[in-house]
């Protein structure tokens, strides 16, 4: 099986290379035979990658420890579910998985678009195949998942298969971690589609927004998965890492946030190009930035240039990545520059008080946030290059910069939808801003009266009210017209309003999700925690709750041994819940992990960690009180739900298609 896997990956390289040459030459000379051969290369690449993935999965399920990758990331007692997820738990497998997703996207794009966009498709195929070739070279030559395990005997190497594997990292044995990487990868890889179409449009000198219209849903699809991936990563960090938080500004977290920020900017700015023919250069720049930031994040995770709790170990692939990024970026910029005459704007800004103007500010703010994150992330590398020592900036830097930026962004999230395209008069402005402003002021006064003095939290909650009131006002106005003119009920009116303009109203739902996310993040201003050793029967108080250790026990399973505390959580003398935090030690990987227990309500979380066995034979327990964390998860779900709505076609269009 290892040989077949290796042959499959080695075949992929010439197939992709042939496809790139055939596609670009076929496109330039309009030779259909070459174009078809290029398309077939993409389809064959996808099939070869699928075969390679199938071989690797088969090896995991058959405990084929002759494979170095399987022996290093699985063991006999690992549950079947995690055997499947072991596929992407190491560098070699995750690169193969990434490339397979490229193949999935490429083949799907080809089948969907090859008839409609005949002139663009050869180049789109060639660009996607270039990405596939790069990963195929990495997988086939530098970091192959099909390397046999060998041992040395008297100077010669012989194949070696251990009785059992080293097992999967215990931190990765969590349901969120099982779906977080595929979600994240679907997002990061998915941005290849708008990037490929943008480059293809430049190559064929297509002046308009055809590439944007063609890739709008692909971009939303990728952004939606990237959002899911980022949120699931945060959720995994929260429930699995046991430090009480969900975002530590770790380089790998930042690596996924940066393309999300530029991707968000891109989703907004393309609307200006579609509506007004402006910002063509900007959109090309954003799609280039987003795509290469996706690759840059992968480089950060895999090169070992920055220290991270969940980056892969230092490896030689960093050099290949940075070379590919540098060449790709230089070619993309050169292409955009050489086609600048086709990127001239068709109109100008009519007024500063307009929706496009608010989108412009939103873009600048998102890019400022992205730059701050980028700078903070690579600062250790820069400091090492110039001063000889790695200096990490840490969360205080990121918070100091990004909190005000985030609040301004939240303000724009609320204002943008209330401004008209092109120009908003003072009368219109007054009319649209009155209620949201009133809602924000009421919330601020109520919170001040209740004694809240944290400046940023106060602003954030007020802006939350501003955004939600603005969106509700939009829904109200739209549905009111339907109710009065068509006699629809409020529920039906809201449904049909949304269904007939999914992009607009789906977008508003995304804004509500964003506001909830921000409010959830603002809750961290009121976090508290306590850490102490408790013997059986002892308790501690936190935020009105009593945490009592009833019993401490230890035992073992085939996969790990554990110590566990049985804890009773009470509020005002009333028992709320039994909690069972535990500390595990996994035999195969010889690693420890904490299994936290969380009592969640809509207003707060009580987060209990079994930190260690105490010196007095008690349990060292750390309890965190985290307000409003659920708002974050609910906000994330609403954001994803809203994005899915925007992907759907308008109901009117469906009706037309049906007729």
């Amino acid at each position, binding site marked *: *099986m290892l*040989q*077949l896997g290796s*042959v*499959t990956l*080695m*075949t992929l390289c010439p*197939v992709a290379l*042939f*496809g790139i040459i055939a596609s670009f030459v076929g496109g330039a000379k*309009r*030779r*259909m*035979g*070459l174009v*078809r*051969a290029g398309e*077939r*290369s993409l389809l*064959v690449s996808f099939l*070869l990658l699928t*075969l390679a993935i199938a071989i690797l999965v088969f090896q995991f399920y058959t405990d084929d420890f002759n494979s170095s990758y399987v022996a290093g990331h699985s063991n006999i007692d690992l549950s079947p579910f995690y055997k499947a997820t072991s596929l992407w738990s190491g560098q070699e497998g995750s690169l193969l998985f990434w490339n397979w997703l490229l193949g999935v996207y490429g083949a799907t794009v080809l089948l969907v678009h090859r008839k409609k966009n*005949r*002139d663009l498709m050869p180049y789109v195929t060639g660009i996607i195949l270039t990405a596939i070739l790069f990963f195929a070279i990495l997988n086939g030559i530098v970091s192959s998942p099909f390397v046999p395990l060998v041992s040395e005997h008297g100077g010669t190497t012989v194949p070696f298969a251990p009785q059992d594997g080293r097992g999967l990292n215990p931190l990765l044995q969590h349901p969120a971690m099982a779906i977080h990487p595929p979600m994240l990868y679907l997002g990061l890889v998915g941005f290849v589609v708008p990037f490929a179409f943008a480059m293809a449009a430049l190559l*064929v*000198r*297509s*002046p*308009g*927004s*055809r590439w944007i219209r063609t890739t709008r849903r692909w971009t939303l699809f990728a952004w939606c998965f990237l959002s899911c991936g980022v949120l699931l990563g945060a959720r995994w960090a929260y429930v699995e890492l046991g430090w009480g938080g969900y975002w530590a500004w770790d380089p790998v977290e930042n690596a996924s946030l940066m393309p999300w920020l530029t991707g968000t900017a891109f989703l907004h700015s393309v609307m200006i190009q*579609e*509506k*007004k*023919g402006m910002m063509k250069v900007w959109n090309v720049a954003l799609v280039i930035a987003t795509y290469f930031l996706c690759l840059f994040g992968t480089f950060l995770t895999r090169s070992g240039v920055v220290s991270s709790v969940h980056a892969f170990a230092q490896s030689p692939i960093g050099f290949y990545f940075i070379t590919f990024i540098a060449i790709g970026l230089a070619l993309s910029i050169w292409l955009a520059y050489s086609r600048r005459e*086709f990127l001239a704007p*068709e109109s100008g800004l009519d007024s500063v008080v307009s929706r496009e103007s608010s989108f412009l500010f939103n873009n600048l703010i998102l890019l400022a946030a992205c730059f701050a994150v980028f700078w903070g992330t690579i600062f250790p590398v820069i400091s090492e290059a110039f001063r000889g020592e790695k200096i990490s900036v840490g969360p205080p830097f990121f918070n100091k910069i990004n909190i005000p930026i985030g609040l301004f962004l939240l303000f724009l999230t609320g204002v943008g939808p*209330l401004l*008209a*395209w*092109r*120009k*908003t*008069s003072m*009368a*219109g402005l007054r*009319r*649209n801003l009155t209620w949201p402003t009133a809602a924000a002021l009421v919330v601020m006064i109520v919170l001040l009266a209740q004694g809240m003095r944290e400046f940023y939290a106060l602003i954030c909650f007020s802006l939350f009210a501003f955004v939600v009131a603005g969106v509700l006002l*939009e829904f109200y*106005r*739209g549905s*009111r*017209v339907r109710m009065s003119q068509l006699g629809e009920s409020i529920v039906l009116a809201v449904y049909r309003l949304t269904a007939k*303009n999914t992009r607009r109203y789906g977008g508003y739902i995304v804004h509500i999700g964003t506001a909830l996310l921000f409010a959830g993040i603002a809750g961290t201003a009121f976090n508290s925690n306590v850490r102490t050793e408790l013997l059986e029967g002892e308790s501690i108080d936190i935020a009105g709750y009593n945490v009592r250790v009833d019993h401490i026990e230890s035992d073992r399973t085939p996969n790990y041994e554990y110590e566990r505390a049985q804890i009773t959580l009470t509020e005002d003398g009333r028992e709320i819940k039994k909690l069972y935090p535990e500390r595990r030690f996994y035999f195969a990987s010889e690693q420890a992990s904490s299994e936290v227990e969380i009592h969640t309500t809509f207003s707060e979380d009580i987060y209990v960690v079994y930190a260690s066995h105490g010196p007095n034979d008690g349990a060292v327990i750390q309890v965190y009180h985290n307000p409003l964390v659920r708002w974050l998860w609910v906000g994330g779900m609403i954001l994803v739900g809203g994005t899915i709505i925007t992907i759907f076609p308008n109901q009117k269009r469906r009706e037309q298609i049906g007729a």
Partner: protein
Amino acid sequence: MSWFVLLLVPVGAILYLLLPLLRPDREIWDVPEARIESLQEKKRMLVGAVRDIDFEHSIGNLTDEDHLEARERLKADLSGVVVDLKIAEETD
């Protein structure tokens, strides 16, 4: 692993890829002329903008005065683009 199976993968792939090159090139595709594509784009944009302001006005986000002013301006732009497009298509 039998050599036959190992050879099947690359040989099968190569045969499948080269097949289109053995057939004569028959299909060609139309490339939209840049100026016409640009004008069609502009027309689509302006029609969309009129639809947008009509909707904004209908739900009360635009005052009557703002709506009328914007609509007149857009209609004038649209007429110009339609004429230019017609000329470009006739001369193409």
